[in-house]
């Protein structure tokens, strides 16, 4: 049986892991190489590295950092942040990434998903969606871009369906309303997207209690959960998280 994945996320700025609330008020959370190795060794199922300054495409230092993290990470490793071209994905894959997440550039140019999937395989193309609840419309979310700073009029669920058709192999779905609040994932959003597509959905934004992880994997129908603050600041270890999930009937893998 396929297990549900627990994925720590490294939000990286100036070579450090940081974490904010709703993408603001950043706090230092450690060294990306050390944290990456720690999570890989402790039984995390994957690792995500997001350059929150979105300079991956132009910043040699960041690519070198990806290389260093990858040298010590023996679990699937996703890298994203400011990718605009398929060539940049090629460079990151050669630097040790296994998958790349695309966000704003895919909204601007949906064919980038198609081109990337054709060149590198759908399994390495992750569409990141930063979604926000649309005020005045129940059960509707719109896509935001540029790290959540700009709203669009694109419906998040419809965008997910379109992205799957174009060749995305997975969706990293972040609730901008919940991100960093530790108040729980947006279950309704996650479920709406997970039921609309056949590719795996990673729930992100709002991880707080272990119940919230269990809830989004069960009621939210997510295939994986992404979390940052609860792991970086030591609220829970990967092992504690998985033991809790196992007790609640969620299939997980132990090391």
């Amino acid at each position: 049986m396929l297990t549900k994945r627990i994925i720590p996320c490294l939000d990286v700025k100036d070579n450090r892991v940081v974490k904010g609330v709703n993408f603001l008020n950043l706090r230092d959370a450690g060294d990306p190489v050390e944290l990456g190795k720690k999570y890989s060794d402790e039984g995390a199922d994957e690792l995500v590295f997001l350059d929150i300054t979105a300079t991956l495409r132009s910043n040699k230092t960041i690519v070198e950092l990806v290389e260093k993290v990858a040298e010590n990470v023996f679990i699937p490793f996703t890298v994203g942040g400011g990718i605009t071209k398929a060539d940049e994905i090629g460079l990151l894959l050669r630097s040790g990434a296994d998958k790349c997440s695309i966000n704003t550039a895919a909204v601007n140019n949906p064919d980038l998903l198609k081109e990337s999937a054709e060149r590198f395989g759908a399994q390495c193309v992750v569409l990141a969606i930063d979604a926000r609840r649309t005020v005045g419309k129940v059960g509707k979310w719109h896509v935001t871009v540029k790290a959540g700073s700009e709203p669009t009029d694109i419906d998040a669920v419809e965008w997910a369906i379109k992205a799957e058709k174009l060749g995305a192999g997975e969706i990293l779905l972040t609730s901008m309303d919940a991100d960093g609040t530790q108040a729980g994932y947006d279950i309704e959003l996650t479920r709406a997207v997970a039921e609309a597509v056949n590719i795996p959905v990673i729930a992100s934004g709002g991880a707080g209690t272990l119940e919230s992880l269990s809830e989004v994997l069960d009621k939210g129908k997510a295939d994986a959960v992404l979390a940052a603050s609860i792991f970086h600041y030591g609220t829970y270890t990967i092992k504690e998280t998985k033991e809790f999930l196992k007790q609640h009937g969620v299939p997980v893998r132990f090391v």
Partner: protein
Amino acid sequence: MLVIIDYGVGNVQSVTNAFRYIGSDITVSCDPAVIQKAHGLILPGVGASGYAMEKVAPIADVIKSEAAAGKPLLGICVGYQLLFEESYEMGTHQCLGLVKGKVVPIPTDMDLTIPHMGWNYVKFANGMKLFDGLGEGRHFAFANSFYAQVEDPEAKAAYTEYGIQVTGAVEKGNIFGTQFHPEKSAADGLQVLKNFVALCHEELKC
């Protein structure tokens, strides 16, 4: 020396990192002369098998002749799928034909997400050398929409459950392959790579 065959498909870096981490003497190359000198070969690959086969075609003969001469060969993911006779991913493609069988899609009507993405439990067949020291089965990291139907009476296969029985690994004499990514399957995956390295060294002593 082991050679990771770099034929321009996917991330050889992850595979290279893992072999370096376990301390093996590894070279990345697609030069036939280097491939001939190697004690063991690793054929990685991601993406679509048809495209991969097209890219591997110029060195297919040297891979086949080295394999026929008994050199250990480990295919990983799409590199593993290329070991079989035929793949039906986006058309019909002839592959290396080192193990009898064909690569077919995982059925999409099972209410399961495709790709088969993540960690799944692989149950080993008795006596598979690749899994020496790992007991009856372990979890490994997968990322596949196609799988190989093994039709070779001389091959041993390991399976995982994903609605149907999905082949996770195969071995036949000196030919080894894993649908999953051992280089991305934490300590158990690294053990698989160590086992392969040990098999290459055994071959050297003979």
